[in-house]
């Protein structure tokens, strides 16, 4: 039985790592503009499609296809912020949230148009064969290895960016206070754009990896992973980058283990049930800090 569990944990880790790529975008955007960017899951979807077109139709090598998807989605993310969120930045929070829902629906339905991605499921032809390695009775696939390595490299890169670069420092100050940042000479608009660009690029990478790991894509594929990733970000403590990764890994494990050992239909119910329980015990997520409101 041990091997079966270990295999499932590895599967869960693969899923969790992909959630982490999406969750980071949610958490970074929430950090700087306090907005639940509901369109983020759909940016992930666009990333999956662009990557798929890249390696299966335009003949790009796989890494180039991933980079192309990331580039396209950064531009998309920045554009979305410019058009749909920036005019509402200092309006009530709910207005931007509704706008985000609008963008989400727009991407889904626009993608469903026949001359865009089309409404149907597409089966993804992987650019390489899936190979299984057996090590001490544990099964690992080359796809899983690619996912792990890519995600770890990206996380390290993000950590460096946020804590070791000027733009990272700008992002951290904007997350605390827009006006104070502006007074200190930080270009708030640009910083927010960069945050959207990075978050969207991460989601795009997640999308392409998702497409080769679970080789079926369609215009509504972003909804559920998007919600789960967002849940993961909240679970870990929204706005906190390590929290997003931790939450994503937990979500991946919960989902995979419940599908494998309990019931695949109850999977979502259990994942969200755990979310509610965690929030009741720690209302700001696992790593979130509760700051009592000043009276």
């Amino acid at each position: 039985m041990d091997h079966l569990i270990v295999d499932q944990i590895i599967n869960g880790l693969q899923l969790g790592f992909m959630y982490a790529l999406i969750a980071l975008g949610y958490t970074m955007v929430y950090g700087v503009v306090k907005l639940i960017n509901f369109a983020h899951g759909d940016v992930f979807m666009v990333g999956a499609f662009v990557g798929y077109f890249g390696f299966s139709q335009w003949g790009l090598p796989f890494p180039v296809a991933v980079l192309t998807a990331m580039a396209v989605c950064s531009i998309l993310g920045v554009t979305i912020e410019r058009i749909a969120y920036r005019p509402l930045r200092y309006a009530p929070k709910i207005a931007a949230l509704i706008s985000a829902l609008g963008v989400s629906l727009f991407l889904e339905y626009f993608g469903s148009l026949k001359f865009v991605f089309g409404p149907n499921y597409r089966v993804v032809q992987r650019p390489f064969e899936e190979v299984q390695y057996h090590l001490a009775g544990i099964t690992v696939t080359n796809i899983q290895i690619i996912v792990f390595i890519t995600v770890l490299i990206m996380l390290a890169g993000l950590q460096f960016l946020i804590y070791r670069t000027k733009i990272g420092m700008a992002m951290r100050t904007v997350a605390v206070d827009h006006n104070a940042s502006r007074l200190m000479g930080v270009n708030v608009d640009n910083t927010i754009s960069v945050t959207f660009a990075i978050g969207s690029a991460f989601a795009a990478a997640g999308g392409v990896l998702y497409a080769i790991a679970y080789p079926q894509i369609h215009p509504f594929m972003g909804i559920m992973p998007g919600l789960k990733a967002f849940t993961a970000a909240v679970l870990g403590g929204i706005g906190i980058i390590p929290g997003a990764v931790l939450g994503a890994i937990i979500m991946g494990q919960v989902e995979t283990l419940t599908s494998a050992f309990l019931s695949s239909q109850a999977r979502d119910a259990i994942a969200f049930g755990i979310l509610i329980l965690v929030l009741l015990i720690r209302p700001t997520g696992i790593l979130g800090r509760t700051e009592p409101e000043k009276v």
Partner: protein
Amino acid sequence: MGKADSSKKTILLLAAAVIIYALIRTLEAAEFINPYWQRVIDQALITTMGALGLSIIYGFTGQFSLGHAAFFGLGAYASGVFDKTVGHGALPMFLLSLLIGAAVAGLMALIIGLPILRLRSDYLGIATLGFGIIVKVGMDNSSKFLPILGGATGMSGTPQVANFDWVFWFTLLVIVLVRNFVFSTYGRACTSVREDEIAADVMGINTTRIKVIAFVLGCALAGLAGGMYAHRYPFLHPSSFDFLKSFDFLLVVVLGGLGSMTGTVVTAIAWVFVLEGLRMVLGEAFIDFRGVIYALILIVAIILRPQGIFGGKELGFLVPKPMGSQAGGKGGVNAGTGA
């Protein structure tokens, strides 16, 4: 001031309702409104009832819910299955089943609301979203516990007794009752919680109790609307009650303007008609472009009017005189009740 004025407003409201009712009936008799449009009207009214529930919860009390459709669905299934198995469409049974729909949704709201209403803003939104998804999973698998519910294949067979008359007068009743609630110390306690929960607490308002009352009432209205839906549309399916439907309710309340019943009612009705209008204008292409245009309207509308169409104001006859104000909310953004 005084009772006379108050009943005058109510009479005005009733008179307006009678005129609208007579108009629709006449148009129907003149075959201006065919059964298809009749369904559209009924759909709009049912949405209004459910949206008014969310208006109490979010618009007036400020408790962010992304799971309203779950309560709508719980009401629809509870009411539908009762009438299908026990009531068989007899009039008292129909009314009883509506009550059951509201009660089941309200009870569930009480159970879930007591723990989760401690959460604030976005966290509450996510918890209710999660609850909605759990309910949807439950509906998809309901046939395992109760085969009659049909699980993911849906349930049909609820007696279709809710005609336009029922839907219309029930909607009016709901509007009047919600108005009465809002313009009482309950409603004012709700808006104080929305405006500043700590200050409300310090001013002697049991904020937990108020939040639970608002949540239970609002969800019970969703359940009532769901019960009506089950008796008007023969086929219940879990996907009609998923989180996209919750967003539908949310955008009606937000586009109408938070803290404005008028806004909720007008937007709930207008939104259904805008979509049907699009269907007429676009013809065949509609099927493809519906979602895209829906999304674009949504984005443009919220950017043009972030405070919603009515931005906290009410039309005069929804404000009962001795308790209301002449001024209304003129502050714009999140201006409040206008009371």
